[in-house]
Structures are given as structure tokens and as C-alpha cells.
């Protein structure tokens, strides 16, 4: 079985490009050109050099000794939290801004939920001197004020999404509508492995630098490229796609995808798409999504804004259906506890998204000899208020 996209833009039965005709020229232009551009020497050179000198790559693969002792296994943390802007999101925005430039685009639009992708987009637009418009749900703007300020400082215009439920899925709708209204000069930088083909594949390739580095770093530390497990949290699925990418075809590497259960799978307040979702179409992709039986997309819930999305990318839908990856869901409480534990054991404050991945050590038992790589997708600075309120700090 293949876990990579096929020539029609599908992962198994998931994927495709379910877009209105108005978007066809833009998406088609990207589809025809993205591989050619990405694989060109000049692109690779510029991309790699920015990842090194601007983002700070390679990010360390850190052996977490005290955490390993506690869980009686060998835990390595892939330190995406040390990327410039504080999360893996910037790997993708660097790639896409270089893509946009080569396509001759002048104006960049993006959606954001927590604001991490918005900040990463505003950052690369400042770097390249391009106009940047970020759509963000009105409710998210209110609860993520520091990131809104960061985007503004970086020169971006933040436009509130006032439609529907006024959160990430509506911000994505607004960005898509903007692209329909501005079909010629604009590139849409999607923030995860979601959306119409070729976005899921393109974003996964930009993020695949994560597993490319893990292979090299693990060889130095363990004398082998392959760990026994790779663990990553899944909102749309970009950090997981990047951490899994070079291991997808290596069936002896266990892949563990962690979704947000919110207040609990059966609570009605959850974002565990692989459990609660079924096949449908969201934002131009056929994938698993949370919806009513009538096909209306429902609002997810998670304490972590970055995991608060009612779908997963089509790659992850395929990994879930084919059982290539094990999907585990983790509640708000379990994640918060695991987040604090990392602070206390290793001196690292994780993003709450990443805390969900960390919580797996409390639900799944690993062997003492297992080598487990956990993708620490982001740092917790943006989440301080949530940590403060939750733990009454």
C-alpha cells in the first residue's frame, strides 16, 4: 500500500480537489508547477539556507533522560519548539512564500486559529516584503490577543471572520472566499496538510524536513535511522505529516497520531476526528470530518486552539483507515498534566498541542528498549494564559 499522494491527488480514497470552478485556475497553476518548482536547485538552495540561518535548523533531537527514566523507555524529543516563531508552522510558510514568489504572486492570504500559522505567515511576508492578510475568527481574535498583536507588529492585516461559528473553519472559508475574489495576484498559504490537492502533499513535503533530520540525528545517537515509534499531535496534521513522512513506507516504525478529545470523546465537546468523524468534504478535500448526519460541519472543541479543527488532512484519514498509524485521543486534562510534567522533568514548556502528544506516555506502555521519538511541535509561550487559568498559577 502507498501512503503517498497518487497522480490524481488522492491518498487511498481521500483527498482530491473539491473546489468551485472559480478557484480552478489558481489551484491548477499550483498543481502543475509545485513539484517542478520545489525540486529545482535554486528553490532548494534558498529554502535550505533560510531553514538553516533564519529558522535555526536543524532543530535538536534531544534525549529526554528524566522523562525516559520515568516511563522506562527511551524518549527523544524533536525540538520544533526551538524554531523561529515557536513552532513547526514556519517550515511550511518559508516554503510557500518562496513558491508564491516564483509563481509571480504579490499578495499573501492565510487563515489562522490560535495565531501560530498567522504569525509564521506574517513573519515570512515581512521577510520577503509582501502584503499579508490573515483571516481569523472573531472569537479566536478575542482569546489569542498576543498573537494578534504579533501579526500586526509584523505588518499583517488581521481580518475578523464573522461568519458561521467565527473560529478556524470560518477563517478558512473567508480565506478561500478572498482567493475567489482575487484570483490573479494572490497566493493562499494554507497552514496545514488540508485543503484541495496539491496543498496536503506540498505542505507535507515542506514539513518532511522534520523526519529527514530525525533520520540523520538518530543515526548519530543510536546508530540506526529508524526509531520504534514516532509520536505527534494532529490538528490538521502538518507536524505529524512532517515527522512521519520519511517513515511512512517503513512499516516497522510505529506511527502514533494524537488527537484532542477535549472534555471527552462522548462529551459533545471534542475534536477527535478519527473517532467522531466520517467521510465527507471540508475545505476542498475528501477526508474524515465531524458533521451532523445531514452533512453540516460541526464545531469541534479542544483546550488547544491548534487542534480545534473539525477535520484532518486526507493523508491522516488514509493512515487512520488503513491502520498504518495508531490514533489515540487525549483529553484537555490529560494534556495539561503532561505539559506540566515536561516543565518539571525537562525544563521545557510545551505548546498545549504538543502536550497532547506527551500524554501518550500515560496511556500507552512502551518497552524499555524502545526508541520513541516525540515531535515537540511548539513552545508554550503562546499558551501561558491557558496554563495560568488552568492551574491557577
Amino acid at each position, binding site marked *: 500500500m502507498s501512503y503517498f499522494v497518487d497522480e490524481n491527488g488522492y491518498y487511498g480514497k481521500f483527498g*482530491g480537489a473539491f473546489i468551485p470552478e472559480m478557484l480552478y485556475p489558481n489551484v491548477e497553476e499550483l498543481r502543475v508547477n509545485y513539484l517542478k518548482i520545489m525540486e529545482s536547485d535554486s528553490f532548494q538552495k534558498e529554502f535550505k539556507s533560510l531553514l538553516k540561518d533564519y529558522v535555526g535548523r536543524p532543530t535538536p533531537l534531544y534525549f529526554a533522560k528524566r522523562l525516559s527514566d520515568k516511563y522506562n523507555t527511551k524518549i527523544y524529543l524533536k525540538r520544533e519548539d526551538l524554531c523561529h516563531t515557536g513552532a513547526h508552522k514556519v517550515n511550511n510558510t518559508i516554503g510557500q512564500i518562496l513558491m508564491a514568489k516564483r509563481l509571480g504572486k504579490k499578495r499573501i492570504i492565510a487563515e489562522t486559529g490560535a495565531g501560530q500559522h498567522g504569525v509564521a505567515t506574517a513573519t515570512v511576508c515581512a521577510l520577503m516584503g509582501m502584503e499579508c492578510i490573515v483571516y481569523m475568527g472573531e472569537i479566536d481574535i478575542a482569546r489569542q490577543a498576543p498573537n494578534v498583536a504579533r501579526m500586526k507588529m509584523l505588518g499583517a492585516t488581521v481580518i475578523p471572520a464573522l461568519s458561521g461559528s467565527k473560529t478556524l473553519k470560518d477563517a478558512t472559508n473567508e480565506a478561500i472566499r478572498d482567493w*475567489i475574489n482575487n484570483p490573479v495576484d494572490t497566493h493562499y498559504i494554507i497552514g496545514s496538510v488540508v485543503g484541495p490537492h496539491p496543498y496536503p502533499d506540498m505542505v507535507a513535503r515542506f514539513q518532511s524536513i522534520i523526519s529527514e533530520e530525525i533520520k540523520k540525528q538518530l543515526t548519530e545517537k543510536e546508530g540506526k535511522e529508524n526509531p520504534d515509534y514516532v509520536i505527534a499531535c494532529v490538528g490538521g496534521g502538518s507536524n505529524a505529516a512532517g515527522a512521519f513522512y520519511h517513515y511512512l513506507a517503513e512499516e516497522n516504525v510505529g506511527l502514533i497520531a494524537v488527537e484532542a478529545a477535549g472534555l471527552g470523546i462522548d462529551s459533545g465537546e471534542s475534536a477527535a476526528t478519527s473517532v467522531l468523524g466520517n467521510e*465527507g*468534504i471540508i475545505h476542498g478535500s475528501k477526508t474524515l470530518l465531524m458533521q451532523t448526519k445531514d452533512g453540516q460541519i460541526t464545531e469541534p472543541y479542544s483546550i488547544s486552539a491548534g487542534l480545534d479543527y473539525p477535520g484532518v488532512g486526507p493523508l491522516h484519514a488514509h493512515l487512520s483507515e488503513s491502520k498504518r498509524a495508531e490514533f489515540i485521543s487525549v483529553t484537555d486534562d490529560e494534556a495539561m498534566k503532561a505539559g506540566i510534567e515536561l516543565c518539571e522533568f525537562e525544563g521545557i514548556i510545551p505548546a498545549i498541542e504538543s502536550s497532547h502528544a506527551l500524554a501518550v506516555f500515560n496511556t500507552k506502555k512502551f518497552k524499555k528498549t524502545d526508541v520513541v521519538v516525540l515531535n515537540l511541535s511548539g513552545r508554550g509561550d503562546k499558551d501561558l494564559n491557558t496554563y495560568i487559568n488552568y492551574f491557577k498559577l
Partner: protein
Amino acid sequence: MNRINKKLQEDKKLLSIYFTAGFPQLNSTVSIIESLENSGVDMIEIGLPFSDPLADGPTIQESSTKALENGMTTEILFDQLKDIRKNVKIPLIIMGYFNPMMQYGIENFCKKCKEIGIDGLIIPDLPVKEYSENYKVIFEKYDLINIFLITPQTSQERIYFIDKISRGFVYMVSSASVTGSQNTFGTVQKEYFERIAAMNLKTPQIVGFGISNSATFKQATDKTKGAIIGSAFIKHLNQNGIAKINEFVTSIID
């Protein structure tokens, strides 16, 4: 012959009206359809509301949200329409996004449309290729015409291809925009209308998006077979109610 094809043979410019089923009230559907027909409208697009209508502007987003709050579902809409062909003779088209139809089951959905007397479907997020490869056979089995869109950005080659596979009419999106964002047509649209007219397509064209009054209706239909009004009608309905539908229609075509 499908009612859409028969209608297209009439020697006149056609006025088609879009409304969102379940708006302003859950049970407005049948009375809106009947008064549109009685007012002289040629064709109706019944909007199946969706939570995430990404090709629509604020007016239709709001009517869709309201319709869903009112409790509209695919099942209820089909139930409301079950006797519609006792009175209503003009072509009826369902316009909606693909996900709710998928959840109903595409074959079931088409079968139900046929039973009711629906003549065609407009599904903005079902792309041409996907339709041709996976759904065409089912649509045709139930004599449903799938209407394709073209826009000012659609390449000449693609327009000829869409023309070739179209039955019924081609939906000409007036400008690069979501629904409802235009109130007048400038030179860009005029040139676009002229460019398409010069292509001599076999399929008649009906213009949609941005038509709001008799002036824009006349401009849009100068070189085409007809025009579709959506947002402007919904605004009127919202302000004036079902009783005044006739006023709106006569303001366009008299």
C-alpha cells in the same frame, strides 16, 4: 424532454431566481416557489443550505445559517417538495454544496430529485473531472442535468470542453467573486460577455452573480440567454416578505 431544455427553447430572455430553502421561515419553501412562478419567473434554483458555503457572499451565508437554525435538512426539504409538481410547471434546480448530498447518498439524492420532479443540480464544489468520472452516470440515470460554471478566468480551451459536456445551460459567473458582491457591470464584464458570445458555444449561457435590478439584468442578458438573481432577491425577501415577491420580479422584467 427535460423541462430545462424545453424552457431554453422559448424565444425570450430567461429570469431565474435563487432562494435558500428554510429562509425566512422553515416552511416558506412552497409558497416562495409558487409566487415566483405566478410572478412570471422562468426557472428556480432551490438552495439546499450548508454550514460552510465557501462560494457565497454574506447575504447567502446569512440566509443559509438562518435556514439551518430554523431546522432545515435535506429530508425536510424533500418532504416539503413532494407535491410540488401538482401545481408548479417551470424548471426546478437544486443548488447546494456536495457534502450534504454525499451524506444523503448521491444515488438516493438523485433518485429522490427525480421522484419529486427536480430537473437539474448546481453543485459549486463538485468539479468537472470528479463529476465526469464518478457521478455522471448516476445523474443521467435520473435525468438530472448537472450545470457547470465558467468564470472570467476560465481558459478558452476549458470553456470549449465544458460546452461539449454540458446539457442544459452553462452558468456564467459574471465576475471573479463570491455571490452577491457586485451591483453594476463595468467594461471588464462587458468584454467578458462579448468574448463568450463570440465563441458561439452550442450550450446557451445564463449569467449569475451580481445581478440585482433591471439594468444589470438587461446588461447580463444582452448577449446571453438569461440571468440568475440570488442575493438581491434574498435581501428583498428579508425586508419585504413573501407577499411582495411579485413586486421584486416585475421590477426586473417589466
